[in-house]
Every structure is written in structure tokens, then in C-alpha cells.
């Protein structure tokens, strides 16, 4: 028997899903652009799921002693909400943009390993679906996205939810590691002629640095997950103190991954605004070397700060002092970036497009999140703040105010390239202001709730002074916040059909992805000009005043 299945390669930039072969083209594709788009749609889909979960929690917490959700349901929802937002929304968002943009930004036609790229996506997707399959198998996981042992051990959590959680994260972890490997190799080997590492667009720099973070951090998580799975399924004792194991070991493993993970989600967002802010300020980034080097510093330091999640464990003054020092230190390179972005606008010509507004919102909200994070490095202050609602405020300011806001800036920025149509700026502005106001109303009050003594992860709270009113205010904010995303999704679907047709380079940007058509043909480039500086398209458009002649940076000279 010798029969063959016809596997169609994409013939058009965006195969129409309704035609006979269209769906098959999406499923069988190894094209980095189609895979990138699938990552982004997956992210949008799971965002809707995760937001629905968040909204149920906000309804439950709107009033003290509310009985809208049972404790068991609430605990399942807050667990899947956390896991969902981190692994199924922000991770595919950053990997989606990276997979789509990195090859084009370095003038390549494909990723280094196109088949591995498809493998990464599908492994990730099925890992994600497995998380929710637990719902049909006897209950979703209910031990938090951090799954602290021994609560996550079989004796205390006997439903299969935690097992599904472990397997789901293992699969997604494998997908993420292979995607990171692919991106690192692509950056190292596929760059256009003349595009040296010192001329890379900052987004590519950040994704490159980030890939090493993923390669080093996810295996730590996967090792821990395997140990927990062996504990649960084969009755081992890694994390059970009653039989000689160490519950604290799980915390070391989890945060050994978990803290780098925060930077894994933040660094690419930093890269996104490092592209957006210069373009809409009409000036090169202020201090390219500082922004790139500080990312490397963040990457290295991020592996030495995990135990600031564990100051209340009681590990002793010396241990705590070390991690206090490293955690404070990592604030410095992060702060440097904020100043660099703000200074980029100075002397420029700032155009407040929706994309730029989101980038500026990142500067404001991420600074709040970064500063509140410094509080956790100050050990005695951490003893007040940790495990309270203050941490909930902090994590949302970092992950929404940082990563997601960066992703939205990137969405408005690259949508014309990806789809060939502009997102509506009119709806975009509404989206932005509802987002900014709604976000801050929802989450800023969490700082006060934490300081007033409200612990996190509680399904309800007693009617102590101010708790009810602040929580109610937050729930109202969440409604505004939610409506902003309805506008975003409306904007996507409206603009896909009726949006203004995009030119190849609608923003007059300077990196190579804007050289090709919008949307790019299945083969990105027929030819790429010799890159002589960090802004090849500026050089093309301004032959009278090219970057490489001016010597913005001494390093740009002398490379070919």
C-alpha cells in the first residue's frame, strides 16, 4: 500500500478558512506567520475565558459574606484564572508576536526550524485544552496556580484536577521551551547581511534574551512538576514532611521558575514598547546599548531573586538578606529602561496613536507595579505585604500594566502588517481610555485592601470597615475594564472587514518587517537590502542623512 495525503502549503497570505483547503492549510502550515497568527487567536480566546473567570470572582467579592460562588467553585476558578492568564494568554501572546515578527525583523523568510515551530504551537494548544479537560474529569484544579505542597499532594487534594494541571503545564512547558530554542537559533543564524547583533531591533534583542530565560527556567518547573506527579501517582515523598520530604523544596523549585517567568512575560513587552515609542516619537531610542544591556542584566539577576516569595517561610536573616539584596538590585536595570523610554520622546515629535497611548500606559502602570515590587524586597515590609491583596495589586500591575499593555500596543502597531488593514483609531481611543481607567479603578484599591489586612485567595471576607466598599468599587472598575475588551474585539472584527487598507509601511517605521507587503506574501522577502545601521528603512528613505553616516552609535561603523 502506498498512499499519500495531500498537505497543502499556504498559497495566499491569509488562507480563507471557509474554502475547502483553507482550514487544512492552517492546520498543516509550518509558515511562521500563520503559526504566529494562531498563537495570537489562541491568546484572545483564552483571554475571554480567563476574563469571564475573573469577572465571576469580582461578583463574588463585590459584597462581604457573599454566597454567589461556593468556596470550592471559587477556589477552582482562581486557580484556573491564574494558570490561564499566565500560561494560556500572556505566553502565547508574546510567543505569537515573536514568531510572527522576529523572522521578518531580521530579514528572514522563515524560522530556523519551521516544523519545530508547528510542534511548539500544537503541543502548547493541547496542553492548554488539557487544563480545562479536568472539568469533565471530576473537577478543575483548586490549589492555586502555585500549587503549594503539601496542599497539592494527593492526601489533601484527591480530585484529578491537580494531575491535569501538572500534565497540562508539562505539555505547555515543552512547547514553550521548543519555541524559545527556535527563536534563539533563528536570531543567531538567520539574520540578513549586515544585521549584526548590535544592530538588532530591540524587540528581537528582548526575545533573544528571553529565549535563554525560558530555556533555563521552564526545565526547573518541569522537574518540580514531575516530582509532584510522582508523589501523587506513585506515592513518593518529595514534598511530604511526614515521610521525610520537604514541602519547602516545592517552593524553591516553583519560584526558581516562577520569578524568571515574570520577566519572561515582561521582557518581550519591553521590546514591543522599545519599537513603538521611537517610531511615534520620530526619534531613535534613547540609549540603545543601555536598554539592551539592562535586559541581559535582568535575565541574569532574575535567577537569583526567587526566595523573595518566601520571606515569611522563616529561613533566617542571612538567607533573607541575600535575596533582599538581589531583589532590590534587579529594580535598577528595570528602572533604567523606564527612564530611557521616557527620554526617547524628548526632542522628538510625539504622535499619540492608540499604539503609542498603550506604550505610555505601560510606562505609568508598570512603574507602579515595579515600585510596589520593591516593597517585597524590603524584608520587614514584605512581612506586612506578602500574601495580602497588595500582592494581587502588584501582580496585576506587572502582568496587565506591563505585559498585556505592551501586547496591546504591539497589536495596534503590527495589526496593519499582519492583516493588511488598519485597526480603527476611533474605537481604539475608546478602548484605550476605558482600559486605562477601568484597570486602575479595579486594581489600585487592592493596595489598600492588602494594607487593611485582607489576605489573598479568599472566597469571601468578613464585613470589616472599608473592605466592602473598596471591593465594590473594584468590581465596578472591572465592569469598565471588561467593556474596554469588548470594544477591542469589536474593533478587530470590524477592522478585518471594513478597516482602512494598510500601506506597506503605514507608520513610517524603520525596521525590516515594514519593507514587505501588508500582509506579507507566503515568502516574506524577495530581497533584503544590505543593512548598514539599526534603522535600515530610515537609511532607505533618507539617503541624504543615513544613520550609518551620522554615527549615532560608534558601534554601527565598521560593520558590513
Amino acid at each position: 500500500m502506498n498512499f499519500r495525503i495531500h498537505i497543502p502549503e499556504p498559497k495566499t497570505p491569509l488562507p480563507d478558512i471557509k474554502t475547502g483547503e483553507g482550514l487544512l492549510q492552517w492546520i498543516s502550515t509550518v509558515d511562521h506567520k500563520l503559526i504566529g497568527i494562531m498563537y495570537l487567536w489562541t491568546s484572545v480566546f483564552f483571554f475571554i475565558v480567563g476574563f469571564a473567570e475573573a469577572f465571576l470572582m469580582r461578583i463574588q467579592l463585590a459584597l462581604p459574606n457573599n454566597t454567589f460562588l461556593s468556596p470550592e467553585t471559587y477556589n477552582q476558578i482562581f486557580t484556573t484564572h491564574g494558570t490561564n492568564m499566565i500560561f494560556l494568554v500572556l505566553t502565547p501572546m508574546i510567543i505569537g508576536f515573536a514568531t510572527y515578527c522576529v523572522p521578518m525583523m531580521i530579514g528572514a523568510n522563515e524560522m530556523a526550524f519551521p516544523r519545530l515551530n508547528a510542534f511548539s504551537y500544537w503541543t502548547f494548544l493541547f496542553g492548554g485544552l488539557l487544563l480545562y479537560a479536568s472539568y469533565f474529569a471530576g473537577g478543575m484544579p483548586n490549589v492555586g496556580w502555585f500549587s503549594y505542597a503539601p496542599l497539592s499532594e494527593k492526601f489533601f487534594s484527591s480530585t484529578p484536577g491537580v494531575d491535569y494541571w501538572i500534565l497540562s503545564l508539562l505539555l505547555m512547558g515543552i512547547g514553550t521551551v521548543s519555541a524559545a530554542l527556535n527563536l534563539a537559533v533563528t536570531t543567531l543564524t538567520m539574520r540578513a547581511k549586515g544585521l549584526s547583533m548590535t544592530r538588532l531591533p530591540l524587540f528581537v534583542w528582548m526575545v533573544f534574551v528571553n529565549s535563554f530565560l525560558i530555556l533555563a527556567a521552564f526545565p526547573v518547573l518541569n522537574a518540580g512538576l514531575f516530582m509532584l506527579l510522582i508523589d501523587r501517582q506513585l506515592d513518593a515523598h518529595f514534598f511530604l514532611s511526614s515521610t521525610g520530604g520537604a514541602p519547602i523544596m516545592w517552593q524553591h523549585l516553583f519560584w526558581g521558575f516562577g520569578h524568571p517567568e515574570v520577566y519572561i512575560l515582561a521582557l518581550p513587552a519591553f521590546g514591543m514598547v522599545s519599537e513603538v515609542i521611537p517610531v511615534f516619537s520620530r526619534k531613535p531610542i534613547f540609549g540603545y546599548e543601555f536598554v539592551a544591556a539592562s535586559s541581559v542584566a535582568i535575565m541574569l539577576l532574575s535567577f537569583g531573586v526567587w526566595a523573595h516569595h518566601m520571606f515569611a517561610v522563616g529561613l533566617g536573616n542571612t538567607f533573607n538578606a541575600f535575596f533582599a539584596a538581589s531583589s532590590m538590585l534587579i529594580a535598577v536595570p528595570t528602572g533604567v529602561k523606564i527612564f530611557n523610554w521616557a527620554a526617547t520622546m524628548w526632542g522628538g515629535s510625539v504622535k499619540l496613536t492608540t499604539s503609542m497611548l498603550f506604550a505610555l500606559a505601560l510606562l505609568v502602570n508598570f512603574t507602579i507595579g515595579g515600585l510596589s515590587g520593591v516593597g517585597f524586597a524590603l524584608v520587614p515590609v514584605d512581612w506586612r505585604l506578602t500574601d495580602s491583596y497588595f500582592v494581587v495589586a502588584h501582580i496585576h500591575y506587572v502582568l496587565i500594566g506591563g505585559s498585556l499593555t505592551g501586547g496591546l500596543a504591539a497589536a495596534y502597531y503590527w495589526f496593519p502588517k499582519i492583516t493588511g488593514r488598519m485597526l480603527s483609531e476611533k474605537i481604539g481611543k475608546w478602548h484605550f481610555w476605558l482600559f486605562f481607567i477601568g484597570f486602575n479603578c479595579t486594581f489600585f484599591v487592592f493596595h489598600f485592601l492588602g494594607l487593611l489586612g485582607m489576605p489573598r485567595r479568599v472566597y469571601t471576607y468578613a464585613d470589616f470597615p472599608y473592605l466592602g466598599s473598596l471591593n465594590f468599587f473594584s468590581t465596578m472598575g472591572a465592569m469598565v475594564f471588561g467593556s474596554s475588551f469588548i470594544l477591542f474585539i469589536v474593533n478587530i472584527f470590524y477592522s478585518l472587514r471594513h478597516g482602512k487598507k494598510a500601506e506597506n509601511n503605514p507608520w513610517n517605521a524603520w525596521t525590516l518587517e515594514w519593507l514587505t507587503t501588508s500582509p506579507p506574501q507566503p515568502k516574506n522577502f524577495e530581497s533584503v537590502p544590505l543593512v548598514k545601521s539599526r534603522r535600515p528603512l530610515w537609511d532607505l528613505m533618507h539617503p541624504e542623512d543615513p544613520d550609518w553616516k551620522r554615527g549615532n552609535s560608534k558601534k554601527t561603523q565598521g560593520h558590513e
Partner: protein
Amino acid sequence: MRRFLDTILHFFGKMSTSSSPGEDYINRLFLFFLILCGVIMVVVIVMILTGVIRYRSGRIQGEPDQRTGNRAVEMTWTVIPFILVTFFLVLTIKYMKAINSPSAEGKKAEIRIIAHQWWWEMEYPGYGFTTANELHIPAGRDILVQIESADVIHDWWVPDLGRKIDAIPGRINYTWLNSQKPGEFRGACSEYCGAQHAHMLIYVVAQGKEDFDGWVISQQRVPGPPADSTGAEGARLFRERTCISCHNISGISDDAHIGPDLTHVSLRQTILSGMLPASRENIIKWIGDPQKIKEGSHMPDFMLEKDEINALATYLEDLK
């Protein structure tokens, strides 16, 4: 809005009138931290607003000057944070040591607190009794407390009395408690510990020496036999319906630590670790359908008849 302002005032008010030396240190460091946050936030916002307003598009024709970067400026805003970090690190280490001193090594804890899913057990080894969910301490001096867990990880947190400390199975943690004045303080378990994490509240009563000594005597007293026949029936049920396997009542059982000690339950303010006010009606409701009152808790429903529950409630009420 008014209430929101009240909250802020309430919070800053707290900073000047702290209840314990440990909290004093935290307040002081927190104040420095707030000032740091405020200053940096203002700098960043001013930088952004200047960029947006002063350098808005349309100000000039064509593209602006493309020269950028300034090593001196960049060095400045790299070096200043390093100085600030050093300052905060020194303070952090100093205050951390102060809060944790003197070292607990070689000392005997006055109180043993054992966290359970979802209640607190308090043992006073020096006085020879055990109680639950309500911690009484003498005001005005340092008390060494030992924190353990019987099952999963919990966390002891009474905001007015300073630091958090985890309760971890297989591990003994120590912390100092000190309330400078008599008073009542509330807290809660702060590490997620399962279904009823939300209802694992802490109630601390700091008392003057005489009041505290009086309380100790009342706790040491072994309750006498029930006064009437209903109470006696309750005592019989308590033994026969196996309540006694989990709950300790001095005089009739000694070593059950699975559920809260009930020896002087009627002297406490609340039941179910701060979930309900202690009252006969609430005890009846609780015994009648534990999973309805505190879903997920380890208290089974014994399917008791109405008059059996009544007898048990009478018995528990009489325990003094």
C-alpha cells in the same frame, strides 16, 4: 469618595499609633518606601507629560533631529538607584534583625500555635492547658511564640502585631509577639490552605497582668459535671456519638487534637475560627449541618436528632 478618603486617613493614622515594636519598624521602613515610590512616580510622570506636551507632533516640520543618547545622563540615572538600593538594603537588614531579635535559640516558647485546616490550636505549655482560635497574651512584654502546622502550609498574620510567619508541616518557626497596650486584634491565615482558607481568622486579646492571670485560671479550671439532665444527656452523646475522638474536653478526654479543644468553648467570642459569633443558636445550626455552614470543613454531619443536638448544645454551653 468620602469613605475612600477615610480609608486613607485610617491607614495613615495607623502608622503613627502602632501596637507593637515589630510593627514600629515595619511602619518606619514602609514610610521610607512610600516616599521613594512617590518621588520616582512624580519623576516618571513629569518626564512622560513633558514628552507628550512639549514635544507633540506638529510642533516642527518634517522629522526632528535624529541625534540621541547621552552617556552622562544615563550614567546618572543608573548610579542614583544604586545609591538608593544600598540605603534601603542597610535599613532592611537592620530592621529585620531588630524584629527577629533576640534569637529564639535555646529559649522555650511560652505559647505553641498549631495551624489546622481551618482553625488554630493554642497550647500554653507553662500553664498546662490548650485552647483554640482565641489567643490571649499579657500586654507589655515580648512573648516567644512557636508556630507549627498539623497539615498544610498556613500563615500567621495579625497586622497590628507585626510580621507574618508561615506555619509549615515538619518545621517549627518562632516569632515574637508584643502588644504594648491591652487591646483586641484581628488577623487571618494568609497562606492559601484549601477550601475554607477564607474562614481561618485570628482573634488576639492582649490583657493587663491581672486580667491575663484571671483568664489563665479560668482556662486551667476543669469543668464540673453537667448541672441538669439535658446537659448530662449531652455529655453522654458527646462520648457515644464519637465527638470525643476529635475534640478534647479536659476532665473527660486529653489527647484529641483533630478538632478544636472545647473545654471552655462557651467562654469564647466566636466559633469556627471567627466565622460566627458564639451562641447557642449558632452551635445548633453548626452541629445540624456543618457542610452548609462551613463548606469543605472536616466536621462530618452526624445526622443527629433535634433533641440530641439540643442536649449537646446545652452541654457545651455549660462548659466553663
